């Protein structure tokens, strides 16, 4: 199956500004490598999709980008992840500051058990962005295309919202604190098609202000939203061990219409995965 891609042509690579420069990233849980030797760049104001079969390490990969894996016991990584030149994987970098600049939206909507307003306002308050709080909340909710649906019930519990609304609230919460990059770990996998479409539209709207890295197992979604696509797959060693690997990284158009690796072609045409 070929997927239609309709998009503006990408500017030439040399005119793109690199946000992340990832070199030889290897991620290990305990003694099992989840990901080996990933090298790629992520560019400013683009949507970068990470696709691949289950277990190929795509979630592990984006969780490396904001030090979220620090919370996992037994996790180690090697290689460098340069963010605007600074290696954020280095031990002396404060992970709290990294996450402050590189936000995250998770697979399952995870609003706080607080009011809709407080879900967005909490991060702002804690991070000291207390001036014009209501305006900031309104702006974030508007950007997340949720404002019109919730403006009359900001004091209602966030848990009273539908799944799709909750996920947009989580996006609003993430962008309210004005991050530079927003990482999304399969943000639509728990949502119905209409809610999914709402989130994809959002990405188009917001990428002029942020850079997005989105993990998805849904190829059509990658084809619809992403400018660049990275295809990860599972490699197997001689002793039955397996790890994730970056197979091919290129413009989405190229990945879906003329991939240079046979494995990518098999995957995007549905022969594997």
């Amino acid at each position, binding site marked *: 199956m070929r997927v239609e891609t309709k998009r503006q042509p990408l500017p030439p690579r040399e005119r793109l500004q690199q946000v992340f420069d990832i070199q030889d990233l290897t991620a290990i849980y305990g003694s099992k490598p989840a990901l080996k030797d990933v090298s790629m760049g992520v560019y400013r104001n683009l949507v970068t999709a990470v696709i691949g079969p289950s277990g190929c390490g795509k979630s592990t990969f984006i969780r490396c980008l*904001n030090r*979220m894996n620090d*919370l996992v*016991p037994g996790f180690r990584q090697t290689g460098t992840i340069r963010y605007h030149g600074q290696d954020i994987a280095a031990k002396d970098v404060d992970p*709290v*500051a*990294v*996450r*402050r*600049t590189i*936000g*995250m939206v*998770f697979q*399952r909507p*995870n*609003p*706080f*058990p*607080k009011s809709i307003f407080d879900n967005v306002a*909490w*991060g702002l308050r*804690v*991070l000291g962005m207390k001036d014009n709080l209501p305006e900031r909340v309104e702006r974030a909710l508007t950007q997340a295309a949720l404002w019109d649906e919730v403006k009359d019930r900001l004091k209602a*519990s966030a*848990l009273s919202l539908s799944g799709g609304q909750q996920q947009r609230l*989580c996006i609003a*919460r*993430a962008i309210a*604190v004005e*991050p530079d990059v927003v990482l999304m770990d399969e943000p639509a996998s728990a949502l119905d098609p209409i809610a999914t479409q709402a989130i994809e539209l959002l990405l188009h709207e917001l990428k002029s202000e942020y850079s997005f890295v989105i993990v998805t197992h849904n190829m059509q979604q990658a084809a619809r939203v992403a400018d660049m696509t990275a295809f990860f797959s599972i490699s197997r060693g001689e002793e039955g061990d397996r790890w994730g690997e970056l197979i091919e990284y290129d413009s989405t158009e190229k990945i879906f219409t003329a991939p240079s690796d046979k494995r990518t072609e098999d995957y995007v045409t549905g022969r594997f995965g």
Partner: protein
Amino acid sequence: MSTLDATGEAARRPFPGRRVRTGDVLLQGVAGLAALGAVVLLGLIAYKIVDGARLSLSTFGLGFLTHVGWDPVHSRFGAGGFLFGTAVTSIGALLLATPLALGIALFLTELAPRWIRGPVTALVETLAAIPSVVIGLWGILVLGPVLHDHVMPALHSTLGFIPLFGPSTTGSTIFTAILVLTIMILPIVSSISRELFVGVPPELKEAALGLGTTRWEMVRGVVLPYTRGGVAAAMILGLGRAVGEAIAVAQVSGAFNNGISWNLFSSGNTLAAQIALEYQSAETNLDVSSLFYLGLILLVFSLVVNLLARVVVRRGARRQGVLAR
């Protein structure tokens, strides 16, 4: 397709009728009797206590609750001093134990390196296994003298302007009782809190940390609000334990029955300790009956505490149930 190779009757009726299964009947009988036994026992105990207190109830009425003093010679008894002592010791213990317990629970769930979590959890819970009489003995022999020689004079000389920290004449004081009770309720409050903190959904913690908040901000903004109801219930259960503790308090509080004082460094007594100390020397019917009256007050209080904890837990559970939906 039928695979029954039985008679034609079995083929018409593939399933046999209900059978009486001996095991099921036996289980039902034994379990039912046990449950019934517990209910009956509670009823009997409550009846005996009310019955035993009847003489004292009719003699002193509700005035018993406010009268301070326990005077067997003149047969004049009152619970006022014990109520005061019970309130001061158990609330004091709760105020000291709660922050400590929350600190322990947070350390064990969020902060400690993984390899020390198991051993420390086990040790804290072992604290609950120490018999109260042993803690009481330690209270008399070790804690009391240390407090009297060092801690109380120091507190009196620095914070003496607060009436709570008056001069001390002995190591057996309300303050000693507060500390002993703190040690005794610490494990309950901390182990319940630890379980509550473990139960906070990791997605919520990640959501907070993903915004770039610190661990403390995450704990304050997510973990504590999420577990508020449960922690309140844990505190109430701790309070119940502190109120009901007799032996250890009897050992360290100084058993002073005739007067109340805001000075924590003076002796006092509590409802439960008084019952434990007095029942052997009670000679008159009215004396015994008055002890039953003290017991009745305790019984009513612990019923209320348990019901309250239940209500709080249920309310908390409902709030968390919304999250699962």
